């Protein structure tokens, strides 16, 4: 029997499942990011142990208790922690049955588990889990022997028809409960803020006189923070410091202009079957199609600025943080603050959705630095809105040169050169370098690491760069520009957004060149039956949809497809939109999503994730682009960085094709790639104009229209 990876790493069953009175506690190292992971793991344990979900509590992301599971990212949580909790619960169930068998005078196989009781139908006697364990825990290692319940058991969670599993976090989130990190309160807690310049590349003029402030100023090298008992006082102090300090920027750290500079690099690797390697890179032969696709820098743009609470007491640092990897953050903090790992505890506490590596880790470090100055006091440190917009690491701008040869309706040759920056700027316990902003600023400064090209399968720039299509010959090259004057890191989907945008736009262009229906053209290049099934179903649903017609608007319809990382969820998408004849404004009308995410644990949660991913990516695709001048970003709030609004939201139809024989696949990022392509393809359908640059808006349509016009 095989033991799931996370359970191998944390084999004690009591690390995952514990009993307290009539309640069951499930521990996971994965953290709640708004994706509903707590509800999903509670459902899995409830199903395996036939236990009422209302009596399950979930503890997540605490470096002192529960399993260590690294980072919560890449749509992997349900595959890793879900599989471990499923197996651990199955083993716990077997132990409970064994222990009950004697006392209930029956063979374990004759006993029935229901609602936290083990029942002997022969004698009608029952024992509760609590009575069986009498306060103890199942403190043994996993063997991999007991099998989880088959997914087609009569009360399976997983058919698309079953009622939704109610989210366990929503009741308190909608009634004013203490739901987020800013709501935590500790006696005598103080407030903290940091003061930084227009960009992370600026440093304060050393002669600035900071003394005349009401608040307690913490200065360590270029790091400047303030502490006060009251929030209004700390804000006023920050304002005062902002007005007082003059900020310096070395010419070599000015923000580069445009995005063509991304091409300026020699770091390049050939990607074969999704994995970069050192094979020689072949030249591109003469091709009958070539095009360049562009994606700008995007922001995570959490609705709440980052925050953290820290306290330094008895030589121990405790930090409450919404970072995605509590154990990685612990190691990074220890390293940056010259502490031992066992002097730091990180406790995950929710904030608004983060969508990747945002300011969370930096805020935790900022809070820790302030806490070290006032031992014994909790510091609630908050970034302001413009801090989050300015200093969070962005999703990198990307250029993709595609070349292809098409002959008799078949793509014979495919080449893609992808130019971008790193997607992996996360902090962890590295030696001699740090990815925390305050570590670069402090007197004992620790330098930023030089980005290295990721070599994992579908790991960063090259995520989804390798088309799933059967092309006879292909050449995929990733080019990493190591420049970090614009700070970049992981955002949902990593390279998949840009790569699928390029692939699925180009496929559409190629099909139209050959006057073949774009879906038929895709199907002709696909062998995987699950890929074929989602596309066919999407096409059928699209042909049943009757788009609205508005005078003065051109309607358009566009398709796109991808299998996330070429191994997770299959997703086909069709977007209906219209484009205003006069203004060229794009309005989304309707979207059809068909997804196969393997075995479905929580169909409603899955739909929520798929639709949310589509809407978020539609916002990136239509509206978003971080703007810069030489001093850094000029996108400092929601007016200067607009996102999709309620009045712009299309209706969405999500259909699931379940494959109960396949493991549950992560789906939170399955739609981020297909979305920009489906929209660009629909714009081309509506206007005849091919836009190869995100954001797909009036400006880029106009620019593309001019080019098309001149070409004709």
């Amino acid at each position, binding site marked *: 029997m095989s033991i799931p990876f996370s359970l191998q790493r944390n084999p004690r069953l009591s690390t995952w499942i514990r009993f307290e009175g009539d309640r069951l506690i499930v521990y996971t190292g994965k953290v709640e*990011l*708004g*994706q*509903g992971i707590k509800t999903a793991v509670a459902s899995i344990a409830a199903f395996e142990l036939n236990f009422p979900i209302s009596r399950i509590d979930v503890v997540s992301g605490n470096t002192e208790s529960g399993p260590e599971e690294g980072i919560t990212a890449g749509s992997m949580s349900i595959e890793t922690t879900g599989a471990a909790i499923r197996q651990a619960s199955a083993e716990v169930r077997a132990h409970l049955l064994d222990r009950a068998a004697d006392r209930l005078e029956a063979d374990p196989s004759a006993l029935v588990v229901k609602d936290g009781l083990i029942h002997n139908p022969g004698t009608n006697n029952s024992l509760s889990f609590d009575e069986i364990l009498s306060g103890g825990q199942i403190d043994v290692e996993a063997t991999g022997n007991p099998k989880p319940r088959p997914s087609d058991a009569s009360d399976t969670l997983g058919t698309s028809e079953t009622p*939704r599993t*109610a*989210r366990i*976090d*929503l*009741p*308190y*989130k*909608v*009634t*004013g*409960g*203490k*739901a*987020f990190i*800013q*709501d935590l*309160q500790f006696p005598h807690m103080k407030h903290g803020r940091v003061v930084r310049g227009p960009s992370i590349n600026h440093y304060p003029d050393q002669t600035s006189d900071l003394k005349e402030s009401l608040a307690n100023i913490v200065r360590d090298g270029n790091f400047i923070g303030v502490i006060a008992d*009251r*929030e*209004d006082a700390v804000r006023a102090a920050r304002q005062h410091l902002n007005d007082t300090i003059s900020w310096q920027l070395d010419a070599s750290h000015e923000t580069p202009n445009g995005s063509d500079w991304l091409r300026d690099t020699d770091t390049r690797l050939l990607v074969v079957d999704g994995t970069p390697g050192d094979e020689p890179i072949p030249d591109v032969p003469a091709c009958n199609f070539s095009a360049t696709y562009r994606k700008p820098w995007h922001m995570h*743009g*959490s*609705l*709440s*600025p980052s925050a953290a609470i820290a306290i330094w007491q008895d030589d121990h640092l405790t930090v409450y943080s919404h970072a995605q990897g509590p154990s990685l953050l612990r190691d990074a903090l220890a390293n940056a603050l010259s502490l031992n790992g066992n002097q730091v505890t990180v406790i995950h506490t*929710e*904030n*608004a*959705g983060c*969508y990747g590596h945002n300011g969370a880790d930096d805020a935790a470090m900022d809070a820790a630095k302030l806490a070290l100055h006032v031992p014994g006091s909790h510091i609630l440190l*908050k970034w*302001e*809105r413009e801090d989050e917009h300015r200093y969070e690491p962005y999703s990198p701008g990307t250029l993709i040169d595609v070349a292809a040869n098409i002959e008799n309706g078949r793509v014979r040759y495919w080449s893609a050169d992808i130019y971008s920056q790193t997607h992996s700027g996360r902090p962890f316990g590295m030696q001699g370098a740090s990815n925390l902003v305050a570590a670069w600023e402090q007197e004992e400064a620790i330098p930023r690491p030089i980005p290295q090209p990721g070599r994992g399968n579908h790991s960063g720039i090259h995520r989804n760069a390798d088309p799933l299509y059967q092309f006879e010959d292909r050449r995929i090259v990733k080019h990493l520009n190591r420049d970090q004057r614009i700070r970049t890191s992981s955002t949902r989907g990593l390279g998949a957004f840009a790569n699928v945008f390029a692939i699925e736009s180009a496929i559409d262009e190629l099909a139209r060149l050959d006057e073949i229906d774009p879906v038929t053209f895709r199907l002709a290049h696909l062998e995987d039956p699950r890929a074929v099934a989602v596309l066919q179903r999407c096409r059928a649903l699209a042909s049943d949809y009757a788009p609205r017609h508005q005078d003065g608007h051109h309607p358009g319809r566009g398709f796109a497809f991808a299998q996330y990382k070429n191994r997770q969820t299959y997703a086909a998408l069709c977007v209906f939109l219209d484009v205003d004849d006069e203004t060229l404004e794009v309005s989304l009308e309707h979207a059809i999503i068909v997804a196969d995410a393997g075995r479905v644990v929580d169909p*409603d*949660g899955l739909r*929520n*994730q798929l*639709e*949310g*991913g*589509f*809407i*978020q990516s539609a*916002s990136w695709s239509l509206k978003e682009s971080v703007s810069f001048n030489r001093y850094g970003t000029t996108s400092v*709030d*929601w*007016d200067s960085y607009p*996102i999709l*609004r*309620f*009045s712009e*939201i299309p*209706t*969405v139809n999500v259909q699931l094709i379940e494959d109960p024989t396949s493991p549950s696949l992560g789906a939170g990022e399955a739609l981020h790639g297909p979305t920009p392509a489906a929209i660009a393809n629909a714009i081309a359908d509506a206007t005849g104009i091919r836009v190869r640059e995100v954001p797909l808006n009036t400006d880029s349509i106009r620019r593309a229209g001019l080019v098309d016009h001149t070409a004709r």
Partner: protein
Amino acid sequence: MTQLELIINQTSVTLDVDPATSLLDVLRNEVGLASPRFGCGKEQCGACCVKIDNKLVYACTHSMAEAAGQSITTVEGLGTPENPHPLQQAVMDLNAGQCGFCLSGILVTASKLLDENPAPSRSDVMTALDDHLCRCGAHNRIIDAILRAADKR
């Protein structure tokens, strides 16, 4: 510091605060309410929305001086976990949220909408919510939840 009175969710409280402090800081830090949220501090996201009498205000920029003596409704005043408002119930029924950070302000705005227009259309709801941002893409479920609450009232 000045003694100022507020009527919060129908209970009168007297507070010793600086009249220049924002209503949001007072509600969160002095009164101890968690539901009004800070998202931007600039009237750009709607996370902090509360009702004063029957008007929506951005608590992040509304000063205590302006709010003094008035009657304020927050999400805590709509309903409780045991006895939720139809809007809160509908959000739970439909799992209408992901992280849920945007929901407080949206629920306040939606309650005003339903008071004035008990049977809104989908586009009425979209228009009413247009000053609220949601970054998770939960928009459609939120719209559906508001329509469902209107149906059930």
